[in-house]
């Protein structure tokens, strides 16, 4: 009985639905505010302290807006894809270690099994498919162009994304995100007691992986410089162009959750997950993921938007070989340490 209650609480309240949704609103605010300050603007300012409630206010506003389905749209697909775009990344966050609700100092995820890393990557790819369907079904030319661009972009970043995500798994000899975090904690502790050259080299190789992963996630999240699938000046918001009201709300919420998921993956695979001294795991999780969100939004204000052909050729010319080299280095290192 108590087992059922704790499961329900961890799925619905903490660290499940409620926490993730609240935190994704906070992440949206952090990303908007940081980007605005870097661009010499103020960003959200009036709703709550420094506009911290602005994402929530935007969501409430979208709830009361009219929800239009264009006559040319394929209605069932058009109606259901926003649900998938919202629900799939949310489901993936249950596999991320954040905080156990029975033990303050443990970070057991809500669900964990051998191979859940593959599951998360799979869910993220399915989101792209849902986005493609969303754009294609809207019956709008700009939507169709945006949808094909999303599919093209997937060709560019999916391979390096998968390769780099596997490299910590090779070192940890496990495909479970939780075991990867445990391995990182153990090896960092071992490195701190007996520093070794190989530990340093491993850290550097993983840092390259981190950099590649950030670039791929920028493309996955459709953030600048890889936002050509919604490029406002070119194709008027691309695949989202026909969405309004509650469906747009779901799309926006899905994007925020995806951003949290991306930051959480970065944290879990490369930054030691929710582990850290003194403070409980969820505090470390929030600190580290906020750092990742800041890195992502900082990257996104630094560059001009690439063209789709430049992204694909650039990814295959530089990112894929670099990712392959990184994985080879990791395989070699896993034999040494």
């Amino acid at each position, binding site marked *: 009985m108590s087992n059922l209650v704790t499961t329900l609480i961890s799925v619905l309240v903490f660290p499940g639905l409620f926490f993730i949704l609240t935190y994704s609103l906070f992440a949206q605010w952090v990303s908007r505010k940081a980007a605005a300050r870097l*661009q010499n603007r103020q960003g959200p300012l009036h709703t709550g302290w420094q506009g911290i409630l602005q994402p929530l206010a935007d969501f409430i506003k979208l709830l009361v807006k009219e929800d239009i389905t264009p006559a040319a749209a394929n209605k069932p697909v058009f109606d259901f894809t926003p649900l998938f775009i919202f629900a799939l990344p949310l489901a993936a966050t249950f596999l991320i270690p954040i905080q156990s609700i029975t033990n303050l100092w443990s970070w057991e995820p809500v669900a964990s099994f051998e191979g859940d890393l593959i599951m998360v990557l799979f869910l993220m790819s399915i989101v792209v498919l849902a986005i493609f369907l969303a754009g294609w079904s809207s019956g709008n*030319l700009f939507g169709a162009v945006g949808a094909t661009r999303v599919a093209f972009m997937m060709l560019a970043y999916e391979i390096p994304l998968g390769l780099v995500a596997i490299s910590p798994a090779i070192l940890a000899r496990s495909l479970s995100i939780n075991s990867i975090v445990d391995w990182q904690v153990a090896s960092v502790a071992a490195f701190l007691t007996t520093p070794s050259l190989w530990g340093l080299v491993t850290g550097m190789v993983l840092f390259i992986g981190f950099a590649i992963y950030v670039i791929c996630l920028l493309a996955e999240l459709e953030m600048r410089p890889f936002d050509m699938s919604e490029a*406002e000046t070119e194709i008027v918001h691309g695949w989202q162009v026909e969405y309004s009201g509650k469906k747009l709300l779901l799309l926006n919420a899905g994007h925020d959750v995806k951003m949290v998921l991306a930051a959480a993956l970065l944290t879990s695979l490369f930054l030691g997950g929710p582990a850290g001294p003194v403070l409980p795991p969820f505090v470390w999780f929030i600190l580290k993921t906020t750092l990742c969100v800041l890195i992502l939004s900082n990257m996104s*204000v630094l*560059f*001009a*938007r690439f063209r789709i052909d*430049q992204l694909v050729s650039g990814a295959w010319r530089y990112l894929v070989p670099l990712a392959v080299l990184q994985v080879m280095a990791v395989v070699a290192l896993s034999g040494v340490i």
Partner: protein
Amino acid sequence: MSDRQFVIPIGPQHPALKEPESFLFTVDGEVVVDVDPRIGYNHRGIEKAMEARNYIQNLYITERVCGICSNAHQTAYTGAVEEVAGIEIPERAKYIRVFFHELERIHSHLLWLGVAAHEIGFDTLFYYIWRDRELVMDMLEEISGNRCNYAIPTVGGVRRDLQKDKFPKWHKMLDTLAERTNYYIKVASTEQTILDRAVGVGYVGKEDMIRLSGSGPNARCSGVPCDTRKTAPYLIYDEIPFEHIYVDNGDVLGQVLVRALEVLEAVKICKWVLDNIPDGEIAVKFNPMQKVPEGEAVYIVEAQRGELIHYTISDGRNMPYRHKIRAPTLGNIPSLVERLKGGYIADIPITLAGIDPCFSCTDRMAFYDEGKDKSWAWDGEQLRRHGLEWYKK
């Protein structure tokens, strides 16, 4: 059209266009194969309205032809009218007109640079450039009281004087502008993501540009030296030392460079004007009821977007018999079509914005029957009736 090709409409309403204008793009995948521009969505009957008002009232109409090049239109209009009326304006007025002409060029070019950065998705640069543009906007506001539509030239001179005690402050502001512009030139010519989106995009060579009769920065970026301030100097431009800016890149990077370098030259001209401005009257008297002798005149100025032509005919009354405005964008559209063909969809916004289009200046309305080779125009009453009929359907 093969089944791989489809037509994307850009406009009349589109975020890349700040004004309503329609372009039908035939695309093959991501590549543009054909462009069909359709101008004429923004017809306001300004030339007709001018025929019913006297020369002073028309000042306010010409100023409102365009929001960005309002001063250029007024400069050209007053120049043409003064030529017909045989008015010689005071020397100091000429200097003040040049000062405003160049300040407006600075603000327009900086505005364009920001918009160009926005079109290639580099919003950070856009915000920075527009922040620095506030300097020149502040100067314009300080002198004229307005951020656009300054109402400075009038028939017979200018309406406001420059105050001597403000000169050191303006010198300092202009120096800051030059310094920031130099920084943006450095950013635009070294930042790799900008170069990826600008080099080779929308290329038109020198011969093609001459054949397609482009003007302004659009032509000068293809290596055609066509700055009216140098080729046919007006006001006091023959006395001012400044460079004739043109580059032979022919692409979007060339357009960025031409405009950025012209900002630097405009700053130089403004500083020269502040140093050399003579004392004296700023206007000779011109009465709104004053009759202007019969005659006609053409006055050409170099507006920010290119060669701006005002042509006026007087039949001896106190209002023009006909006033014709030829805005630079009209001449730039053939080369714009050439620039767009063969490019990517992703490059459409920056190429479109590249000529700094101003459709409100450009649009006219006339009917043309291709079969009979006959053209005619409608008057206001016919237009009104057509509008009523159209919405009854």
